[in-house]
């Protein structure tokens, strides 16, 4: 039943809305919340409490307390008192076995109190230890909040939006609106956010500042970052100035029965009557520490509620207050022995400024003994507090920590969220949890959904009284974001996971490649048959996309000394148009990357790196260039150039069809670099062979990726040219015993122990890591990277153990079956004593051992005849 139209009601009676509660239709009006519509339909019990399953009804009507949390359209823990009613919404209660009126778990309230004090499970459920999973399941089924549907799918789209404001006002209290108007009048760009409905409805573009409502600021972070929950969008505000106008939070009083259905805060009366035209009850008692209770009194009278008693705590301090009920609903109120048959008790324990956002911003929180509240002081630059949040409060009495029951029994709740009573707090103090932070963790007061809004101040008062000290000495717990509940989906937002694709990527997909991640790159693992693809390279000609290689242009008068300082090998003696393999080391002499260095001119070098190491190498080059101040320019051309490798005995024949360049063995030798047009595209061609066969690596502008790929495949169709992926490439390079940095090396590997002593030129003046490598040379190798082969058996797992004398002595880094060699081949780190041609290794495989033979030369074409042909 609704009251006659109220002057400031928010409902539009011409626009009915229907939603369902437990399958039963409920009629609401536009402007209603789900909670107000349910109240209008006669519902008084809205939830069952966390632990005792006590009936709970509307308490604050402002989204502060946990009493009205329900599941709405599958989303748990929705505070229906502030959730707008919407057509077709499906609403159901949560944490209930049965119904809200008859919850079978309500038995816990009858029998559980004495045996389930705070922290009881820490003491009673620790033995037997193996039963804990059972206990945990039981606790989780009995206590708690709403349940998440484990099979739920994404319901909606969450976005993150980056916003800026010169002035961001949080809260549309009158002080907040004033602050916004003043700033706007001063020409500032102002945005006001508020978690209620639009505070200036209908103003449209006439507003002097932007209003975002309903929207909740959930924290204040460094740099003026204020995330704002605006439903499906998380607005990440950066503001030059933040005005906090979050107002104050009405505080409950602590007395037996203070959680009964029908015990409400003044704000609930104001909203029920004025916003939704609802009569809160029939017969009321008002107990108040401030004018809010008196304002509620006016609202009640206007709504036709009979007010039986008014207790103004500023004038009179009763010794005992108790509320009594039946079925969880208020039936009577006793004040100092006088009993009133009331179904509504309006309690006001004063207002605590909502300081959490200010505390998060860095303000100091101090207790004001004169007013009995905590206030934010020493606000950081750029942050301002106005209105109640800033301590502008009407005079109020400081209520007692608790009011006695006058001899009658009943639970007195300090924390409604977690069902913590005054007895629980006293017990915790007796057990030694006298610090507010420790007690918080033990009792869980302030850790529930309200996050201390309604329990912080009362619990501090209680701690102070029981510890015979004052509230300032007790202090407060740390205020942390989020200030308002926020969904994990909103925090996560839309995932942005950058993926790199080569210019030939779609051709691989067209050819049916299985794609895999290598770093941020998407690359073809194979095109269906890796063994066959590897064999095509040995037998005819293969084509692989190697665009992912890192590529750098190093140029300048000091390019040679720069490279010679970075690499352990030498470059000054290179002829133009020649290529050299290089291993890049750290200051500690460890291998960080490898690649090729082609000299294209007197002061011009083209450097390639591994695919996954490219970004690190580029940073490494630039960092050292900044340190050494050398006349060198480094340009990253990784993405600018696509690259393909044509490899196999018939690759020369294929190349001759693609370019006018002399590709004969005499005209274009192994480790030569040439610039020429390939299929009409300007290219740099490197005669190198990572896969062990005659090969040409063609680097060319990326926009021609698909064109060049297509032309090569077409031109070589009669040569049976086949694309090959990463997996066959790994087989081929292993046959040649070419290392993969990161696979065959780790953060401790160095070039000497990785069997590449020839690359380290100790006679150079200096290079990065020289001193460290000298120490390695002096102490001798502790381990050695070698090849191994198994005539039969399975390929040992990469990372598998090499065992000597029954003890782990090394590890397998790579292993594959080679169809070409008809055996298992691999590489492993072994003790130096085993690094001899033909030495026997035991490798752990599937719990047993496989005997392998050490090989120091490449398995395939050890003399390099095919590569150099």
């Amino acid at each position, binding site marked *: 039943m609704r009251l006659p139209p109220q002057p400031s009601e928010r409902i539009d009676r011409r626009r009915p809305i229907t939603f369902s509660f437990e399958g039963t239709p409920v009629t609401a009006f536009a402007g209603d919340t789900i909670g107000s519509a349910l109240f209008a339909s006669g519902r008084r019990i809205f939830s069952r409490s966390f632990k005792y399953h006590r009936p709970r009804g509307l308490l604050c009507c402002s989204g502060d307390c946990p009493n009205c949390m329900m599941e709405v359209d599958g989303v748990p823990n929705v505070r229906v008192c502030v959730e707008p009613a919407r057509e077709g919404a499906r609403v159901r209660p949560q944490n209930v076995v049965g119904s809200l009126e008859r919850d079978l778990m309500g038995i816990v309230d009858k029998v559980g109190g004495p045996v389930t004090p705070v922290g009881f499970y820490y003491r009673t459920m620790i033995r037997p230890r193996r039963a804990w999973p059972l206990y945990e399941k039981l606790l989780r089924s009995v206590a708690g909040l709403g349940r998440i549907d484990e099979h739920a799918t994404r319901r909606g*789209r969450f*976005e*993150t*939006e*980056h*916003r*800026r404001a010169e002035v961001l006002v949080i809260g549309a209290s009158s002080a907040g609106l004033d602050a916004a108007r003043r700033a706007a009048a001063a020409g500032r760009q102002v945005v006001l956010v508020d978690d209620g409905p639009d505070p200036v409805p209908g103003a449209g573009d006439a507003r002097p500042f932007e209003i975002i409502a309903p929207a909740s600021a959930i924290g204040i972070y460094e740099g003026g970052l204020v995330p704002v929950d605006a439903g499906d969008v998380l607005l*990440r505000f*950066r503001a030059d100035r933040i005005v906090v106008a979050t107002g104050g939070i009405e505080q409950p009083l602590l007395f037996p029965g203070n959680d009964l259905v029908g015990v409400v805060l003044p704000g609930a009366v104001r909203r029920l009557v004025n916003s939704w035209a609802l009569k809160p009850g029939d017969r009321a008692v008002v107990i108040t520490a401030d004018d809010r209770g008196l304002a509620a009194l006016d609202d009640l009278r206007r709504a036709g509620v009979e007010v039986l008693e008014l207790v103004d705590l500023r004038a009179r301090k009763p010794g005992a207050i108790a509320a009594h009920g039946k079925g969880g609903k208020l039936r009577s109120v006793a004040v100092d022995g006088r009993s009133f048959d009331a179904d509504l008790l309006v309690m006001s324990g004063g207002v605590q400024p909502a300081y959490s956002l200010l505390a998060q911003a860095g303000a100091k929180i101090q207790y004001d003994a004169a007013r009995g509240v905590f206030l934010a002081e020493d606000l950081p630059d750029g942050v301002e507090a106005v209105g109640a949040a800033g301590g502008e409060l009407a005079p109020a009495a400081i209520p007692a920590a608790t009011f006695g029951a006058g001899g009658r029994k009943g639970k007195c709740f300090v924390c409604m969220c977690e069902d913590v009573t005054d007895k629980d707090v006293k017990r915790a103090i007796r057990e030694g949890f006298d610090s507010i932070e420790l007690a918080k963790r033990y009792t869980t007061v302030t850790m529930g959904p309200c996050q201390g809004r309604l329990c912080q101040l009362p619990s501090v008062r209680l701690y102070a009284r029981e510890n015979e000290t004052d509230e300032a000495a007790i202090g407060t717990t740390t205020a942390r974001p989020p200030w308002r509940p926020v969904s994990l989906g909103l925090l996560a937002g*839309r995932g*942005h*996971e*950058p*993926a*790199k*694709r*080569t*210019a030939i*990527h*779609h051709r691989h997909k067209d050819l049916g490649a299985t794609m895999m991640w290598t770093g941020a*790159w998407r690359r073809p693992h194979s095109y269906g048959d890796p063994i066959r693809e590897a064999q095509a390279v040995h037998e005819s000609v293969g084509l692989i996309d190697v665009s992912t290689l890192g590529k750098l*242009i190093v140029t300048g008068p000091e390019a040679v000394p720069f490279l010679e300082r970075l690499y352990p090998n030498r470059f000054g003696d290179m002829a133009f148009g020649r290529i050299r393999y290089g291993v890049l080391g750290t200051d500690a002499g460890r291998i960080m990357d490898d690649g090729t260095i082609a000299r*294209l*001119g007197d002061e*011009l070098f083209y450097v390639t790196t591994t695919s996954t190491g490219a970004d690190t190498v580029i940073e490494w080059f*630039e960092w050292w*260039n*900044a340190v050494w101040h050398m006349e060198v*320019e480094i*340009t990253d*051309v*990784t*993405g*600018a*150039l696509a690259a393909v490798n044509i490899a196999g005995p018939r690759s020369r024949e294929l190349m001759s069809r693609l370019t006018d360049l002399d590709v004969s063995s005499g005209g274009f030798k192994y480790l030569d670099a040439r*610039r*020429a*047009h390939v*299929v*009409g*595209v*300007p*290219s*740099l061609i490197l005669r190198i062979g990572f896969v062990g066969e005659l090969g040409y690596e063609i*680097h*060319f*502008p*990326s*926009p*021609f*990726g*698909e*064109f*060049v790929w297509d*032309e090569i495949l077409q031109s070589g169709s009669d040569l049976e040219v086949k694309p090959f992926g990463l997996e066959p490439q790994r087989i081929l390079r292993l046959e040649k015993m070419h290392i993969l940095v990161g696979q065959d090396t780790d953060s401790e590997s160095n070039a000497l122990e990785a069997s590449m002593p020839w690359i380290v030129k100790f006679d150079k003046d200096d290079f990065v890591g020289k001193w460290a490598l000298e120490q390695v040379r002096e102490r001798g190798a502790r381990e050695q990277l070698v090849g191994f082969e198994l005539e039969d058996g399975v390929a040992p797992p990469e990372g598998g153990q090499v065992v000597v004398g029954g003890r782990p002595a090394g590890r397998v880094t790579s292993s594959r079956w080679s169809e070409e060699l008809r055996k298992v081949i691999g590489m492993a780190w072994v003790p130096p004593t085993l690094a001899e041609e033909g030495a026997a290794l035991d490798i752990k495989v599937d719990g047993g051992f496989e005997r392998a033979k050490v090989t120091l030369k490449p398995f395939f074409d050890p003399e390099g005849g095919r590569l150099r042909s």
Partner: protein
Amino acid sequence: VSELDFLAVDRAQASDRFRPVARSPMARRLLEAGAEFAERDGWLVAVSVPGEDDVSVAIRDVTHAYRIDERHGDVERRDGAHAARLPSARSFVATRRDGAAAESAPVQGAVDLSAGFAALEIEGPGASQVMRRLTDLDLDRLPAVGAVAQVRTFVFRHAPEGYLIFFRQEFGHYLWDIVVDAAKPFGGGPKA
């Protein structure tokens, strides 16, 4: 081919045997959206996209339209050119190939990186909001170098509600998908 010509898209040579055509990394996505293409100055360029007349925030692939280089020192902004400072006293310069600032001769010391970058335009009412969902860059202080959808970009404003973004071409496919998706709630979509 000499010096660094192997980086230059416009050094491609058509012949009887081969007719090189350059493609943007986003061409495939446009093709899948039903776009029709034509060859322009050696590039395959989308000339129409189904439904493009209905989009309010236009997402355009303009990779083909710009020559990009990295060069020493500061560069003043000229008609049709966009420049941003890089570390080590260098500049990123994007010049419209058909603009007044198009240069016939390469600038001394400049490295042609046209092949390494892709370019997108986001234009129309709501473009700023689309951008704000992709980047925390201050859109009132452009040009800027910073992350868009976690990819390093050069962002310019070319109209009151128009943004031009340059980024490494290997992110083309990824960024196209992200931008088109972000623009959808604002009536955005691909446009030729």
